[in-house]
């Protein structure tokens, strides 16, 4: 006799909990590995999971075992070809004796690096940990028609659909016991007894008594109802308004000829991070992509990241486009508006004043937070606006003059590896609520 059970449809991922515990345990090392990996990756696979290797510190499992070197040891091995007893053999180099191979390598494997595969979700979660959109929901919509209903105890009044049977019956039972309402069984027993006595015809005294008892019991039953209105309970529901914070993020990118491939790569990386971050953290965040040369256009995600275009540079066109979109679709009274701009800092000379004016008059007053990321040539020192480096760029100077208080944040990036720290700096959790100051 035997049974055969098909377990294939059982939920898989039984060891998921173990895996989460493992990742939590090795978090520090995994985080480091994830960041290193992200700097090396191509733009398209920045959000992929994949192989990472971490150092085994902190995830060792020590046991009391005997050392693999020293002392007197005995080995029995198969495959003797030429040895006679009494022969001397040179020790193999690792000092592991003739039992080389598996024992050494299996341990060795655990010694230096521990390699394993992270899934896409795990990768991004670790990647974007502790980031928060600053100042979200400051302008909470006053008109929210979304209400959440949730259970809030019991009430004595309500609609029949919400009747809570268990509570009601419990109350009813308690009341019936307290008031000594005769149970069905008692009445049945009495009737049976009367029946028996009548049939046998003896003990008339008892018969009368039983009849009286029955009459009394029936009277009580009449007087004490099975379910009384005081027993009835209803599930109570309470409504709480759900604040619907709507936010929109504008991504502005210069794709003109003056942007080298390297700069575009940096800018795209920044936006890729931003996009990943937004799309994972905020379900209700709209993202608008605007790219510009000497003219600007709103484009979709795919075009924004992957298609090429050339032309001059007029920043104000992008700002105009942004202002237009805000006006058309995102009234500032109802939306939290964020802007992020990436550029090499070039701008047509004649455009600077217009840009500054647009920023101060149209864009910044509507924005919760505006981040400007200036991408530089590879090899240029970061943070150069101060000190004897190359001169400040047109756009940098223009933006610096705008005294926008805490709404405008500016950063310079010249190398891939800086993108992530700068990104974190801009969106770190503790910044939420108090946006970065204008600084370099």
């Amino acid at each position, binding site marked *: 006799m035997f049974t055969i059970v098909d377990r294939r449809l059982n939920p898989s991922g039984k*060891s998921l909990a*173990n895996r989460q515990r*493992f990742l939590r345990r090795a978090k520090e090392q995994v985080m480091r590995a994830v960041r290193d990996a992200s700097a090396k990756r191509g733009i398209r696979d920045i959000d992929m999971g994949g192989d990472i290797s971490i150092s085994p510190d902190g995830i060792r499992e*020590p046991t009391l075992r005997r050392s693999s070197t020293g002392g007197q040891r005995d*080995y029995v091995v198969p495959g*003797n070809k030429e040895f006679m*007893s009494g022969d001397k053999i040179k020790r193999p180099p690792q000092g592991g004796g003739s039992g080389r191979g598996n024992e050494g390598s299996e341990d060795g494997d655990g010694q230096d690096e*521990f390699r394993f*595969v992270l899934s896409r979700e795990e990768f991004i979660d670790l990647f974007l940990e502790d980031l928060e959109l600053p100042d979200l929901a400051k302008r909470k919509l006053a008109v929210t028609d979304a209400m959440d209903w949730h259970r809030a105890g019991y009430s004595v009044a309500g609609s029949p659909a919400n009747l809570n049977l268990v509570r009601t019956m419990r109350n009813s039972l308690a009341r019936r016991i307290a008031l000594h309402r005769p149970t069905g069984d008692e009445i049945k027993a009495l009737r049976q007894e009367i029946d028996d006595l009548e049939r046998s015809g003896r003990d008339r005294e008892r018969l009368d008594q039983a009849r009286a008892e029955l009459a009394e019991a029936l009277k009580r039953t009449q007087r004490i109802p099975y379910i009384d209105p005081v027993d009835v309970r209803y599930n109570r529901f309470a409504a709480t308004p759900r604040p619907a914070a709507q936010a929109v993020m504008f991504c502005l990118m210069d794709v003109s000829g003056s942007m080298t491939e390297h700069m575009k790569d940096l800018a795209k990386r920044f936006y890729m991070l931003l996009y990943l971050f937004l799309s994972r953290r905020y379900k209700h965040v709209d993202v608008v992509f605007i790219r510009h040369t000497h003219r600007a256009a709103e484009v979709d995600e795919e075009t924004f990241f992957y298609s090429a275009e050339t032309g001059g540079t007029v920043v104000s066109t992008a700002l105009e486009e942004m202002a237009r979109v805000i006006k058309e679709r995102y009234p500032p009274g109802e939306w939290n508006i964020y802007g992020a701009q990436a550029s090499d800092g070039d701008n047509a000379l004649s455009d600077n004043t217009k840009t500054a004016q647009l920023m101060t008059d149209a864009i910044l007053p509507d924005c919760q937070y505006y981040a400007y990321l200036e991408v530089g040539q590879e090899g240029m020192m970061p943070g150069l606006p101060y000190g004897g480096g190359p001169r400040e760029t047109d756009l940098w100077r223009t933006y610096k003059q705008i005294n926008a208080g805490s709404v405008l944040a500016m950063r310079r990036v010249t190398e891939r590896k800086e993108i992530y720290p700068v990104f974190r700096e801009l969106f770190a959790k503790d910044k939420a609520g108090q946006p970065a100051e204008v600084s370099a």
Partner: protein
Amino acid sequence: MTLTAFETAPLYTGADWDYDKVRRVYDAIEKVALGNMGLDCYTNQIEVITSEQMLDAYSSIGMPLFYKHWSFGKHFARDEAMYRKGQRGLAYEIVINSNPCISYIMEENTMTMQTLVIAHAAFGHNHFFKNNYLFQQWTDADGILDYLSFAKAYISQCEERYGHANVERVLDAAHALMNHGVHRYPRRRGPDLRNEEKRARERLEHAEATFNDLWRTVPTKAGSNSPLSDRDRRRTLLELPEENILYFLEKKAPRLQGWQREILRIVRHVAQYFYPQRQTKVMNEGCATYCHYRILSTLHERGGLTDGAWMEAMHSHTNVVFQPEFDDRRYGGINPYALGFAMMQDIERIATQPTQEDRYWFPDLAGRGDAMGALRDAWANFRDESFILQYLSPALIRKFRLFHVADDARDPEMKVAAIHDERGYRAVRQALARQYDIAWAEADIQIVDVDLVGDRKLMLEHHVMNQILLEEEEARAVMQHLANLWGYEVVLDEVETPGGTPMRRINVTPRVVLGGT
């Protein structure tokens, strides 16, 4: 072997499997296993799983349910990475020592592989689990699944109540000491009334029979009315020395809380459950491999297996029992499947067609005729070490061309101590048996004393054999865990055996006291 009836039609053709075929094959195998071979098995439960689930099962040491711990996640991550890259294949089967005996078969396998796996696991391993004395003595096949489900629920409750981090710390510490959380000898049973009475009576009779009033007059030394010293009395009270460290901590650690003791107990029970498996690798695999070989060849002879299926089965079989030689790149120690299978076949050979040499070496076994009976005997009453010591024949030593190398770190070169010749058989056999003796392979560590009047220092001793000390870094880490559990200082002395010369001392104070508040 007598063939009862020839089944002319094959049980199945083609590679695909379905439930009907599995049932048919199972019935045919059962007939051979129970009828011809006289195996005695727990009821079987065969579970079909995917490769994904097989990986899952790997990570919780093969058990269908287990408590959660990060180390299992780590093993899973490594196994998965290696499997995905093709560096390592999956096991064909996993079998659990429980009643009913659960064996997993993978859906990706061909029908022939399923046949092989059922014969191997559901009958070979199953018979071994049910009949071997170690398993009978140490494991409770009926209760293990219930116990594990209790353990899982208990530990997750603890996590909710006391926090993940706290539970994890206790589990980490317990896992580090897991190998030293087993009872190696069956403990004394609790006193049972009838035996106690009998013993008391015997003692009384003995006292009466040897009564001599003269002893009363012998003067005793003044002042020492007890022959025990303080240290001895303390050690008796604490039942020291104790080699089961987890047991000692569970019962005697001063600061642990109830739930922490229970967790130690769970880890200890799991370690104890797996203890027989570590001692019977060669026999267990040898038994299962021999069974699947016998069963499948019988089926093939009767026409139940097509020639193609037989070839496929033999292909896997030879892969499994392949033993590379020591100078081969693939050599990784002695393959327990190869050695086990060869020894089982050898026993069969000695029982049925002994040579003169066999008659000299195995007077009881040679020519006994009943090979299956002899094998069943061996499977029931031995563990790897004693099995090899008893049954490894000179013929097999020659076949494997085994030789014994002695390696003394003090000498510049290693020495071939014995080879497969007349003078060497016994030495080789003894040395090989010793390799499988886990009491020999594992460090002998005991708790010897506790400084009760002073600072409650816990003292342990490692009896160093052959001058092989502990791996220092790891030993320190483990002692740290031990100190955290104990709550006070812990000292490990490594003492040479025999001789008693101290070689090294590891001294650790607790960093995070796990118990108490």
